[in-house]
């Protein structure tokens, strides 16, 4: 996953525009008029990297705000580069916000992730 060419990084830029956090607040409804429900503590991952992935990355990249990053075979090094540097609207994350060891694991989670069933091929 090393030696990524600049051209590849540029191509990946739109794919990593936004990354930030959010809770796993979800709706049990759909558009059928059911009451919106909210997840509780069972929604909080115990593993630090998984927590960052679910509560931070996915808050934008699984909600249509940022582009889809799962199931795209994104190189882990590219993920780390964008997390640290940000890109346009995507904020940068300092090592105080996410340490190098946790970031390594988050990047692996993204790199090896599968596309959700409803995700269009990219």
């Amino acid at each position, binding site marked *: 996953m090393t030696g990524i060419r600049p051209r590849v990084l540029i191509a990946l830029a739109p794919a990593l525009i936004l990354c930030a956090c*959010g*809770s796993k607040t979800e709706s049990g409804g*759909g558009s059928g008029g059911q009451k*919106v429900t909210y997840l509780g503590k069972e929604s909080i991952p115990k593993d630090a990297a998984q927590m960052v992935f679910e509560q*931070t990355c996915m808050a934008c990249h699984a909600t249509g705000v940022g582009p889809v990053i799962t199931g795209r075979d994104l190189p882990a090094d590219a993920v780390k580069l964008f997390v640290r540097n940000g*890109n346009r609207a*995507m904020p*940068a994350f*300092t090592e105080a916000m996410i340490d190098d060891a946790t970031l390594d694991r988050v990047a692996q989670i993204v790199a090896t992730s599968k596309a959700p069933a409803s995700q269009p091929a990219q």
Partner: protein
Amino acid sequence: MTDPIQPTLPQGVSAQQFEAALGKLRGLLGADRVLTSNEQLTPYSKVMMSAPDEEHRPGAAILARTVEEVQGILKICNEHKTPVWPISTGRNFGYGSAAPGTRGQIVLDLKHMNKIIEVDPVLCTALVEPGVTYQQLWNYLKENDIPLWLSCPAPSTIAGPVGNTLDRGVGYTPYGEHFMMQCGMEVVLADGSVLRTGMGGVEKSNTWQVFKWGYGPYLDGIFTQSNYGVVTKMGLWLMPAPPAYKPFSIRYESTDDIELIVETLRPLRIAGIIPNAFVIANVMWEAAAIIPRSKYYDGNGVTPASALAEIQKNEGVGAWNVYAALYGTPEQVEVNWNIITDAVKKSGKGRFITEEEAGNTEPFKYRAQLMRGDMTLQEFGLYRWRGGGGSMWFAPVSQAKGSETKAQMELAESILNEYGLDYVGEFIVGMRDMHHVVDVLFDRSDPDETKAAHECFGKLLSEFGKRGYAVYRVNTGFMEEAADLYGPVKREVDQRLKRALDPNGILAPGKSGIFV
């Protein structure tokens, strides 16, 4: 992490001074918590303003973990007359992010001071350190089955209560005026003394987080939007989860409806019928949460009215979109709901959308989350509206009167359009005021558009200022201009306080236009 660069020096600080300070800071914190490499400092330099990143590049960043370390840091900075720029979680998007107000200052990063010291589920209070994020506090409440709600700004998760409150940010619940819901601070002053405000100085006191005022002059305010101390603990009040919660939207089809909206709803807000800091968002704010502008307009300049009309028609958004909520027992909610629906019906305009109708659709869903203090980043969609990552919040205070909001809206729109930029605006309704929040969005990768945004922002400040309107908060590129709007006496008093509390000017020089 091994690519040391020539340090970026703060104004008036020699390389020798700076290196001497860094050497002592390494001795205090260890080399691994004194960041100087290009790679380490880049995330601290990323801003969304019109100014280049380089103008706000820090000379270093240091990571403190304890109050004693903060005291030690300030002692070293005083010895070497080297300034620090304290940050809590380092967000403040569109207001300067984590970067210092001026180039070369050392970022004093408090992110690792992230203890939730206490949550009292009986009195509904919390005491937290500056590095705590809303997400962290939300997780804590959930994990411990504490039925309390937060109030947070739109980028709720990565921001934190201390930083947001100290910059006098707002949220969307009945506790939306965050500084009003703050109670007690611990502040390290420039000379190293540790002040506890309110009841915090009373030996054996257990009322620090329940009574704001203490005795004598109330001091907490001077540590917000200022550079008089480093806040290392802050108390805040949390809202008990109500038995019933009813978020709703009211959609209006004409831009001119803003007057009628404000005149209809203001009395309900002042009387507490609508208890939360509700919002009135315009078509582009609303649309940005769900689509990029390019779906309807792929050109440059201002979004044409025809595209906006199409968006309203096809995306189910109004020219103005009210989001409010009711909280309490089901009986209370029902009574207030009837009062509100009657008032809107009598006004002759406005279509209600309830949670039952909206279901799981955006932007209703994220608005409902924000009004109950849940975590979401959906509003980051604003930043893809035009693309390019440029954003500066222009946030003048307005009376909650229809004529005033209309005048401000028209003035903002005309100035923005003059520079080819869109009016993407929202009013957040306070107790008597409205925060008129305009996101000046621009493509930061386009030098011409960035230059136009810079000039536009200056003109917004000055033209609004001529009419008696001033911003409640501003990005770090325009602090001097904003401070000038508040008059020379205010500036002089700010400076007198600075000289008394921080005679060497080592704390965040330039914050809110305050220098020693």
